[in-house]
């Protein structure tokens, strides 16, 4: 599967394609940052009124943090694997330490801290505001697919609107 003939796209490129063409991510405006030097996966969600949880538009709705954490953790597992393998979230928990203010991008910093067969463990901090305050912490487990279905058909990802 790591044969370059069969696997023409790098895992970084694949992660980028996934994040760019995932309909829900595109709908809310999620952005995947390049793999950082500390090995962590960073995703951002710029504020916009429709993402707020209060009529005044001061705070992100809790679910937007969950979606960003789930996506970032999934891509962190993906990068830890270093190859394409379908994964499924088994469970995830999020603790809201403080309301997530909309005075800057919401940033998810995720890492896969343990990779076994067939379970991967990932965790994520969600930071908000100019001071990068920790708004929430999420922890999740992921099941790695037993069936090696190979690289997905990229044409299914390239039809969508580029952001």
């Amino acid at each position, binding site marked *: 599967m790591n044969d370059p003939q069969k696997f023409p796209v790098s895992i970084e490129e694949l992660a980028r394609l996934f994040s760019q*063409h*995932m*309909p*829900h*991510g*595109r*709908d809310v405006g999620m952005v995947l940052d390049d793999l950082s030097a500390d090995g962590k996966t960073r995703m951002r969600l710029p504020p916009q*009124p*429709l*993402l*707020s*949880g*209060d*009529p005044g*538009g*001061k*705070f992100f*709705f*809790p*679910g*937007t943090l*969950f*979606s*960003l*954490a*789930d*996506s970032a953790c999934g891509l962190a597992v993906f990068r830890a694997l270093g190859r394409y393998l*379908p994964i*499924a*979230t*088994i*469970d*995830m*928990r*999020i*603790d*809201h330490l*403080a*309301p997530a*203010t909309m005075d800057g991008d919401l940033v998810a910093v995720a890492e896969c801290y343990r990779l076994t067969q067939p379970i991967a463990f990932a965790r994520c901090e969600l930071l908000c*505001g100019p001071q990068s*305050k920790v708004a929430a912490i999420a922890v999740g487990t992921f099941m790695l697919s037993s069936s090696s279905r190979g690289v*997905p*058909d990229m044409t*299914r*990802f390239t039809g969508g609107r580029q952001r």
Partner: protein
Amino acid sequence: MSTTHDSDGIDAQVARERIAATLQAIPYTRHLGVRLANHGAADGVVFHLPFDGRLIGNVTLPAIHGGVVATFMEAAALAATYALIDEGLPPKLVDFSIDYLSSAGPIDLYAQCEMHRVGKRIAAVGVRCWQRNVDAPIALGRAHVFVAASASDAAVMEEHD
């Protein structure tokens, strides 16, 4: 603050109206399209999220994004809790935990809440989410929701305003 924590003390129609008002007041639940199902009056309120292509998280399966399922269940827990209290507080979630039992196919989602305990300060709420078959949930969730912030809680929350 005068609150009613006894769900039997609230008229079912009043509860439905309050839930609908909460879902309308939150920009993100309005954006996703979370609403009340028309049925379910006999055994409690049923929440409904009609399928839309933009909710997809996995294009190959295809499946609704796990975060959308979680958001829908969180919204249900928050709205169900706020229907029980008199004052229009902004929804505050302490924590949320979800077990995914199967992937969510590209069809409508439904959810129902069970108020495990509604205390003076927080409520413990269970949420089940299903698609075609009410007896085969695709996800189970558990939430703690702030019911009433005490003076000290308020100070902690205000810090971030």
